[in-house]
């Protein structure tokens, strides 16, 4: 069964996901098939500068799915130009901090979906798949206070959990 926080309304694209593994099985198989996504955008400055990782990310998607790996600045521009709303796009970010940077660059974000943040030194467990540092909490809380609906959900079949800040 697929539980989507946005299932009662028409899904709005792009879906914006925070996942420290970026593209991996849950995304390229799970979410792509559950929603029929045709476009995956990884917005991450470090990854965009690493040709081996870019090639691996592109190799991992099924035929017919376009994978773009871009700088965060470029993602913000494309987002604001409406380029990601024209198709079934998912924008994947590494951290809540990167999502907040998009907001600061002028992007209007209605919803943010936290897919997976692993344990790091100094992080605390919110859910088995979400460990938040102080900085993560601050970034998410600021987004909530700016009206972004933040929900946690790793797989299409898990129930979304609303983050209230």
């Amino acid at each position: 069964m697929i539980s989507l926080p946005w299932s009662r309304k028409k899904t709005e694209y792009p879906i914006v996901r925070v996942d420290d593994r970026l593209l991996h099985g849950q995304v390229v198989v799970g979410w792509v098939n559950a929603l029929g996504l045709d476009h995956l955008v990884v917005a991450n400055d470090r990854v965009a500068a690493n040709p081996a990782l870019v090639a691996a990310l592109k190799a991992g998607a099924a035929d017919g799915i376009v994978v773009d790996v871009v700088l965060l600045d470029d993602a913000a521009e494309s987002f604001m130009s409406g380029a990601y709303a024209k198709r079934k796009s998912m924008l994947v970010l590494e951290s809540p901090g990167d999502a907040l940077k998009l907001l600061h660059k002028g992007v209007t974000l209605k919803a943010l979906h936290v897919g997976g943040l692993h344990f790091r030194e100094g992080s605390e467990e919110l859910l088995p798949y979400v460990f938040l540092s102080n900085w993560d909490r601050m970034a998410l809380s600021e987004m909530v206070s700016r009206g972004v609906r933040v929900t946690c959900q790793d797989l299409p079949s898990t129930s979304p959990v609303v983050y209230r800040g």
Partner: protein
Amino acid sequence: MIRAVLVTHGSLGQSLCEAAISVLGPQEGVTVLSNSGLSLDQIQERVLAALTTDPTVIMVDLCGGSPFMACCSLTGLPAQCAVVSGINLPMLLSFLTKRSQLTLTELADTVARDAVRGIQSRPSV
């Protein structure tokens, strides 16, 4: 000797190893890792810890999965390594039976071919 590191989702690697041992008997130089609960950095740390100075074929299950992503972007490798995705039992058996006769590059290509050869469709049995 060419070694293998299996990096998979869940306990798939462990089960494949057990299946291979049931066919060929006990094997040396194979390390099994799972991605469960690990970030990309943590997967990379464990893979690096499993490597020696021997050439190694790193076999992962899903092209596009986190084991694949982590292994394709390893740096500071202590030995020559190849990454092959799509591990199945034929691939692992091919590796174990051919590793003493081939170079690392030849072996990586051979196990990938043998994995595909092991997939046959008989739609109307």
